[in-house]
């Protein structure tokens, strides 16, 4: 049985930009009838341009958003419209690592307190001990527990976010663009850490990113999104060998590999596609502001 299964999963959110005073905001369709499965202990990369709905999908998986249509099951249980009370026992197993650790960590709390808080909330025995263990696992030993987020580097802060998520021994983690703000060497360390934790703790991970290179090193499965739809999904290696969707080819072609390649800058995604392939949609103008 897959850990997650979605059938025709749709989600709409109120469009606050179009809201008129004293009227309900019109709703805007973000996800359009997605069908997918996520196997236990897999790491699935969810990729796409900003505004493609990849983060919204991740948030739906951990039920930070309630789907408006279709069906979503977690471990065989229908969680599509579960209320907050019914979700509470599941929350421990649906964890999130946020993109920006400096805004997702309380600046007034020590690292120890930050990692302990969810442990207390879920009534886990001896929170300080469990927090220490989690911090050890992410390579932030003893003394870090008494420090404050501002005393840490970006990479260390992101490790605290990871420790907070894994401390609960969850079954699933949604990681939202967690390495895009980091330096090259820190990024490689965090990717290595996540890989190790996934094996040690038998985690299932949904890793949202716009960078196909990062996903290649971390994820065994891939979902490519565009405008709220899944345009391609499957085995990561297979998709990289022969990307089918024009959107996948465009994402791949946009990555600057550290290699001299004259003409790369003026190459358009459609000219990068193999001959005979359908042309990529017109992307000569930048996408509208991201919806998150």
């Amino acid at each position: 049985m897959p850990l997650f299964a979605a059938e025709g999963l749709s989600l709409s959110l109120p469009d606050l930009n179009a809201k008129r005073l004293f009227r309900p905001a019109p709703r805007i369709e973000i996800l359009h009838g997605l069908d997918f499965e996520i196997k236990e202990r897999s790491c699935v990369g969810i990729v796409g341009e900003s505004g493609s709905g990849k983060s919204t999908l991740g948030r739906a998986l951990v039920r930070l958003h309630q789907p408006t249509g279709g069906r979503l099951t977690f471990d065989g249980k229908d969680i599509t419209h579960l209320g907050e009370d019914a979700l509470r026992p599941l929350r421990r197993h649906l964890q999130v690592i946020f993109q920006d650790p400096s805004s997702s960590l309380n600046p007034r709390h020590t690292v120890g307190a930050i990692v302990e808080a969810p442990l207390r909330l879920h009534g886990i025995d001896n929170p300080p001990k469990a927090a220490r263990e989690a911090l050890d696992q992410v390579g932030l030993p003893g003394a870090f527990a008494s420090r404050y987020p501002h005393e840490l580097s970006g990479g260390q802060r992101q490790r605290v976010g990871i420790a907070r998520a894994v401390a609960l021994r969850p079954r699933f983690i949604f990681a939202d663009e967690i390495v895009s703000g980091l330096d090259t060497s820190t990024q490689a360390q965090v990717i290595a850490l996540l890989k190790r934790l996934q094996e040690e703790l038998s985690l299932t991970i949904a890793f949202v990113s716009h960078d196909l290179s990062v996903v290649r090193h971390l994820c065994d499965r891939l979902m490519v999104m565009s405008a709220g739809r899944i345009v391609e999904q499957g085995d990561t290696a297979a998709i990289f060998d022969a990307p089918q969707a024009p959107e996948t080819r465009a994402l791949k072609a946009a990555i600057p590999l550290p290699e001299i390649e004259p003409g790369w800058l003026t190459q358009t995604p459609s000219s990068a596609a193999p001959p005979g392939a359908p042309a990529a949609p017109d992307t000569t103008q930048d996408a509208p502001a991201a919806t998150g």
Partner: protein
Amino acid sequence: MTALLDIENLSVALGGRRDNRLLRSVSLSVSPGEVMGLVGESGAGKSMIGKTIFGILPRAAEVIEGDVRFDGKSLLTLTQNERRMVRGKHMALIPQDPLTALNPSRRIGSQMTDRLTKILGERRDAANRRARTLLEEVHIRDPDRVLRAYPHELSGGMRQRVLIAEAFAAEPQLIVADEPTTALDVTVQKRILGLIAEMQSRHGAALLFVTHDLGVVAKICQTVTVLYSGMVVEQRKTADLIAAPESPYTHALLDASPRYDRPADALRPVSPEVLATMRAAVANADEAYR
């Protein structure tokens, strides 16, 4: 050919103390029309170099040695007024975060017109027309809508296009681009890189491109300076550096860059040995400096 920008033996230190350097005797020179990449991780001092050029170092940081010459003249001894003349007119900055570089409470059009009247001394109506032409030049399809828009109404890519247009407005000889695509996603990044390269070659300005991404450097820069902890570790033609990095640090950085064309297990974080070597090199340099 004489260098347009010539940084010689530059040391910048916190509180002006010799044992507290942020930049450690940095030398680099950029010829007219050259595109140089300035690469390093956070804390390497790459933005600090840009800030020294523009005379916008934070108060705690002080130049304690060396010189920064632009077109043969030292930038460090300029008065505030002279500096203002050079900035904008002869050199311009494309910042990392276009949102903080734009005034959130004013329309794009009036902000652009303001800067153009100040820099070029044009009259408002001429500056208005010029702003529109500039936006067309950076391939904004509906310049009139953008001129009327507030910054928050534009996407990140669009805002960056506006700032690129402004940077090139006065035909400066030098553009410093400080991680201009870091906040953008890959497809938008590619278009913005293409635009910067196109504008650079059309206007013939020299470009100092600050980034942490060696992939971006490979695509846009002819030469590259790699920094570690405020120290130049390698300075060469980009093609040579990519083909055969000389410094173990550059080598390690290349190995730590994720690449979709390599197998999943090919990614190697910078090893502790390399970092130890680098720290020792920094300590040696500091020892010799005392």
